[in-house]
């Protein structure tokens, strides 16, 4: 573990980003897994599948250009079977609303052949030596856990069957399992898992190579709709979240952070604020850490309640040294990008065929300058961490999505051995990429050093919007052509993005040379210019794709219109010529299938009700293929009504259809919310938005009918937290064009006077 204090760069954010995009390599399971079975004091059994000394380099643990750090695999589960038949399954990874706590338990219970009604699920403690990676993100939890969790369940089942066979003196193959019962088929004798647990616990674990997994035709739990295991606690208001942590003698902290990055507090009315009622202490915090764990320089207020801390923080008057502070300006960046758009970028990312010749011989050429803004994550639970220095260590309660990285970093920051850093993982009040960062943990650790007893650092909504790691904005100067046959014959893009270090794109602000449709075309020129940026950026739901899909999938539609072709037919033609890829890359056959399915289910090609328009978009991200059709109308005041969004997706086998549908519904609403009116702007290095009044979320009345369809697939399951989001904005903008003839090339829509 070597989280280091490095010069301030965003390489570690970039590494977290790669992780969020699912670039971490997966270790083969069988060589790494080990298994222990133990008897419980009360007579039950405990099956534990873990990793043996899996090296876990934190993302960012290497210099730029070094091989990507290996993400440890996650064979991580506990199954505890009590003598009364109750089964407790521990979820290693935290639930951020993506439903992993439920779907991971379903996966184990399936291979265990458990009676689901007797299963309870709990959050596992943080311990890398038992659970391996406990990170979540990048729609990777499901694909990375799918095999290990199934093997964990199958191991326990094999032991229970062996115990039953032994007690009856019969051969194992004569036994069958279902709903927590082993049956000896010839005699009809039965024993429940609870009755067998003690005997099973005394048996040696089976050879992993001998385990057989169920064929999918025998699934009874996986593939059925299962509601979240935490629902009852949520609807009754139980304390589940880091925000809800309460401890004896708890103090509360609020920070007044630097008004621009790298500004330093020089002096202030600290003594005066310290005398305010309920205030215990006021002190400055130097900036510390970097990347995802960076604490910004700040003045801290420690008080007896959150309100007292907020009130005192607002009373602070601080003089800041801004000599080294950020002066980032979004308006200047936009002006510069518009100038640059007239040229090609100096950095060529991809050049295929001959775009100039294709433009020269084109039937029609089209140009479009697209832009999208910075975005904040705005998790509804603001950032919060409770930290408590005691007994030579620190104990923390944090909404941490990357505890594997954060914990060793905190140990290093405080000069503690790793085992002296205890982190509890509560349920997380929304992620969307924000909790991959652990800046709030760094801050809380620095505050806790100065407080005798536990202290809860609470971010206000204003803090949350103004000190985020934003989705980076971007600009695309596109030029395309269609030939005399109406085919897309040339594609040129000058991509204008941002860079924190002058050479590599800011996190989330990069474009891969294979980004669709670039791999599908003969004549392509992709160049890039990076504008300087100091504002922090990071992964936001469907990193990179969340921005890139809008210009590219709108522009394909522009070209289809120019060619006077049907958009669906035009899109399908692009895939027809693409080579079949392997692994988790874009698969043209799966792409075509979701496009056809979305077209069929949305009534594509049929008459639209008067005044309405339909728009389609496709995107591939996070191993998921998604096509979406929006049906919209726009009134004279530019009030946009999105009547219906039809979604067709292929994410392989679906573990929990209820959860998968929910993630898609959420992605559509999130996509709409962002495209309607959200943007983060900054001037003089300071973010200008303050609360939901100027950073609006979609409200219930603007929610369309969302019609979700999945391609039935036996392919290995992939995640669904992200890939349904990218096609939404271009589908809606293409629908606006269909309804009104107006092309939207700038987000959010509110800039052109649209309202929801």
């Amino acid at each position: 573990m070597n989280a280091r204090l490095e010069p301030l760069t965003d390489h570690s954010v970039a590494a977290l980003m790669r992780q969020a995009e699912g670039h971490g390599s997966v270790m083969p399971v069988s060589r790494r897994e080990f298994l222990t079975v133990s008897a419980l004091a009360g007579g039950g059994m405990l099956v534990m599948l873990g990793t043996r000394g899996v090296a876990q380099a934190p993302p960012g643990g290497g210099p730029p250009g070094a091989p990507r750090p290996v993400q440890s695999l996650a064979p991580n589960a506990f199954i505890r079977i009590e003598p009364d038949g109750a089964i407790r399954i521990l979820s290693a990874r935290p639930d951020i609303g993506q439903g992993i706590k439920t779907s991971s338990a379903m996966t184990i219970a399936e291979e265990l052949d458990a009676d689901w009604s007797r299963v309870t699920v709990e959050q596992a403690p943080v311990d890398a030596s038992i659970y391996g990676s406990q990170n979540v993100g990048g729609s990777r939890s499901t694909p990375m856990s799918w095999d290990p969790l199934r093997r964990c369940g199958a191991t326990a089942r094999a032991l229970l069957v062996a115990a039953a066979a032994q007690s009856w003196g019969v051969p194992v193959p004569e036994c069958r399992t279902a709903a927590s019962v082993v049956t000896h088929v010839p005699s009809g004798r039965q024993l429940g898992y609870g009755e067998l647990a003690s005997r099973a616990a005394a048996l040696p674990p089976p050879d992993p190579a001998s385990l057989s997994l169920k064929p999918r035709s025998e699934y009874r739990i996986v593939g059925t709709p299962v509601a979240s295991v935490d629902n009852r606690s949520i609807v009754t208001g139980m304390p589940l979240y880091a925000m809800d942590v309460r401890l004896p003698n708890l103090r509360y902290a609020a920070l007044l952070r630097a008004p621009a990055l790298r500004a330093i507090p020089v002096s202030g009315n600290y003594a005066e604020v310290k005398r305010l009622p309920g205030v215990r202490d006021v002190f400055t915090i130097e900036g510390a850490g970097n990347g995802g764990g960076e604490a910004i320089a700040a003045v801290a207020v420690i008080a007896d309640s959150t309100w007292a801390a907020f009130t005192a923080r607002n009373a602070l008057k601080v003089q800041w040294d801004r000599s080294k502070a950020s002066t980032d300006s979004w308006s200047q960046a936009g002006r510069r990008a518009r100038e640059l758009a007239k040229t090609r970028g100096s950095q060529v990312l991809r050049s295929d065929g001959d775009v100039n010749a294709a433009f020269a011989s084109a039937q029609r050429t089209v140009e479009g300058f697209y832009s999208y803004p910075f975005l904040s994550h705005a998790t509804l639970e603001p950032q919060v961490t409770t930290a408590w220095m005691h007994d030579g260590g620190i104990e923390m309660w944090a909404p941490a999505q990357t505890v594997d990285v954060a914990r060793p970093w905190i140990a290093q920051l405080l000069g503690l051995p790793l085992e002296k850093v205890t982190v509890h993982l509560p349920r997380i009040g929304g992620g969307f990429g924000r909790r991959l960062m652990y800046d709030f943990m760094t801050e809380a650790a620095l505050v806790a050093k100065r407080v005798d007893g536990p202290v809860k650092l609470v971010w206000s909504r204003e803090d949350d919007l103004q000190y985020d790691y934003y989705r980076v904005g971007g600009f695309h100067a596109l030029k395309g052509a269609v030939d005399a046959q109406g085919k897309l014959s040339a594609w040129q893009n000058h991509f204008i993005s941002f860079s924190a270090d002058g050479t590599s794109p800011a996190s989330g602000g990069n474009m891969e040379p294979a980004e669709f449709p670039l791999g599908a075309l003969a004549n392509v020129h992709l160049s890039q210019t990076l504008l300087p940026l100091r504002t922090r950026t990071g992964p936001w739901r469907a990193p990179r794709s969340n921005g890139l899909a809008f210009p590219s999938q709108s522009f394909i539609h522009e070209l289809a219109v120019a060619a006077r072709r049907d958009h669906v037919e035009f899109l399908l033609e692009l895939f027809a010529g693409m080579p079949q890829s392997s692994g988790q890359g874009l698969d043209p056959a799966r792409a075509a299938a979701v496009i056809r399915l979305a077209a069929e289910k949305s009534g594509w090609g049929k008459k639209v009700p008067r005044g309405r328009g339909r728009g389609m978009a496709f995107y591939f991200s996070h191993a998921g293929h998604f096509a979406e059709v929006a049906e919209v109308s726009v009134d004279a005041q530019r009030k946009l009504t999105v009547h219906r969004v039809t979604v067709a997706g292929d994410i392989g086998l679906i573990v929990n259809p209820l959860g998968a549908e929910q993630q898609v519904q959420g992605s559509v609403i999130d996509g709409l919310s962002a495209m309607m009116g959200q943007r983060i702007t900054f001037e003089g290095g300071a973010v200008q938005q303050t609360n939901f009044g100027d950073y609006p979320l979609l409200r219930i009345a603007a929610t369309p009918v969302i019609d979700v369809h999945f391609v039935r697939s036996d392919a290995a399951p992939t995640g669904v937290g992200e890939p349904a989001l990218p096609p939404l904005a271009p589908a809606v903008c293409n629908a606006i064009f269909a309804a009104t003839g107006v092309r939207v090339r700038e987000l959010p829509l509110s800039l052109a006077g649209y309202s929801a």
Partner: protein
Amino acid sequence: MLRLKINGREHVIEQTLDESTPLLWVLRDQLGLVGTKFGCGGGFCGACTVHINGAPTRSCQLRAADMADLEVTTIEGLAGPDGRLHPLQQAWIDHDVPQCGYCQAGQLMSAAALLREKPQPSDADIDAAMSGNLCRCGTYTRIRKAIHSAAAAGRRRT
């Protein structure tokens, strides 16, 4: 000293509080009723919705000191005294409404007030009553479904 009547019980807060302290923070920090959530502190998001004499209200916008003679109901008081869930809570579970779950206490309090006022709400009634509650995860589709379902369950009972 401050006396509050919350979920049918009298609470006495001995600690001297700044008189500007919102009800939200007294519920959470002083009384440990943390089911009522802090989302924005500005009355935009509705995560802190409680009932004041039955009316859905943003507890971050109310001074605790003004609540002395009023009945406050929080999410912890929505189920019956015997622990039986409110029909909306059951519908929320059955329809698997929550994603992250953080806003849902506020959503439920607004929905409960709606059903008391209009036991058979239309979609427009739901839009009007629920428009003050933001859900960052986008559970609105299921919220609407669950409210209709709880209303239908009410119809079957009567």
